């Protein structure tokens, strides 16, 4: 007993942390029994477990008083010596400055810097490679539509196409050829299939702006094919 008291004297230096550890050790002995004995909901099994645990651990031993700030802490008699041994081990680690004192927000500096450089979307989450490619494509299409008129013509904007048709006679003749198509049902079906394929391709390439304007869109396709 004297040896225990002598060895417990250095523990007073870290009294607060020891008391917290003791609380966690004292309370943690109960939840460990729950998962095996009762796998049902914890709210139901917890009241049932308490009397059984009390029955199992009827003999309690008081821990030394100098470490308990608010009265003695009673623990399982079987764990008494183990707890004292762990206290000594933690005291040694504390003396050697090897305990986990303050937890760092990150472990690796290089990974932290890489995470800071990553692009974030709405809501603060990182963008994946696909989302990043989509955002880059939208940016590129925006820049092209703003700068080059030839790109405007290639992008098949309905307003620009209408203006071209009002200006040139060749476009008018193409419109007349397009108006002949609805009379033939078979050709119309084939034309619609091609239109669907082209719509799919355009959706994969750019996105939402191409989906509007079906009929004029079809006419625009004919013009682009003739130009090529």
């Amino acid at each position, binding site marked *: 007993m004297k040896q225990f008291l002598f060895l417990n004297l250095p523990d007073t230096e870290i009294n607060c942390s020891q008391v917290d*550890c003791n609380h*966690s*050790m004292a309370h*943690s*002995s109960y939840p*460990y*029994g729950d*998962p*095996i*004995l009762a796998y049902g909901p914890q709210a139901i099994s917890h009241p049932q477990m308490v009397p059984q645990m009390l029955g*199992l*651990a009827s003999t309690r031993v008081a821990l030394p008083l100098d470490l308990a700030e608010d009265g003695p802490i009673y623990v*399982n008699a*079987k*764990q008494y010596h*183990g*707890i004292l*041994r*762990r206290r000594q*081990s933690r005291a040694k680690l504390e003396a050697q400055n*090897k*305990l*986990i004192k*303050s*937890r*760092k927000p990150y*472990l*690796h500096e290089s990974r932290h810097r890489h995470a800071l450089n990553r692009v974030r979307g709405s809501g603060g989450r990182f963008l994946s490679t696909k989302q990043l490619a989509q955002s880059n494509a939208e940016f590129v299409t925006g820049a092209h539509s703003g700068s080059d008129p030839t790109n405007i013509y290639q992008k098949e904007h309905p307003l620009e196409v209408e203006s071209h048709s009002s200006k040139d006679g060749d476009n008018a003749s193409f419109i007349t050829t397009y108006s002949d198509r609805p009379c033939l049902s078979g050709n119309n079906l084939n034309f619609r299939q091609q239109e669907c394929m082209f719509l799919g391709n355009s959706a994969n390439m750019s996105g939402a702006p191409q989906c509007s304007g079906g009929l004029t869109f079809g006419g625009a396709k004919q013009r682009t094919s003739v130009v090529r």
Partner: protein
Amino acid sequence: MDQDVQDRALPIANVGRIMKQILPPSAKISKEGKQLMQECVTEFISFVTGEASDKCHKENRKTVNGDDICWALSSLGFDNYAEAIGRYLHIYRQGEREKINHTKKYENPQNQTQINRAPPPPLLLSRVENPPPTNQSG
């Protein structure tokens, strides 16, 4: 400080993964929940291993084996854990014995010494007994 966290505690990603195994798929675990569980599990492993090591020291042995862990759990009052770990240890040793016999059957006599032991099957309790290797990504 990085070395302290990596050496003294289990990797927090693996702890979170083990916690997720018992929860429904839609459940989420907060970071401080994982951190607190990391400290609890690390302390529990040190607690049980200290008891087993104390027994080995008294018997003048240097290797702590599975039986010592089972004895330590029962001596500390975790009898239910000791039973479950005992059954798991029995199944594990059977598997190891079968693997040795299997490799002896099909390998050449010259290569008998090169026997690859596969890791134990993933089980919730097995991870508590056998801590996973230190993961740099944690």
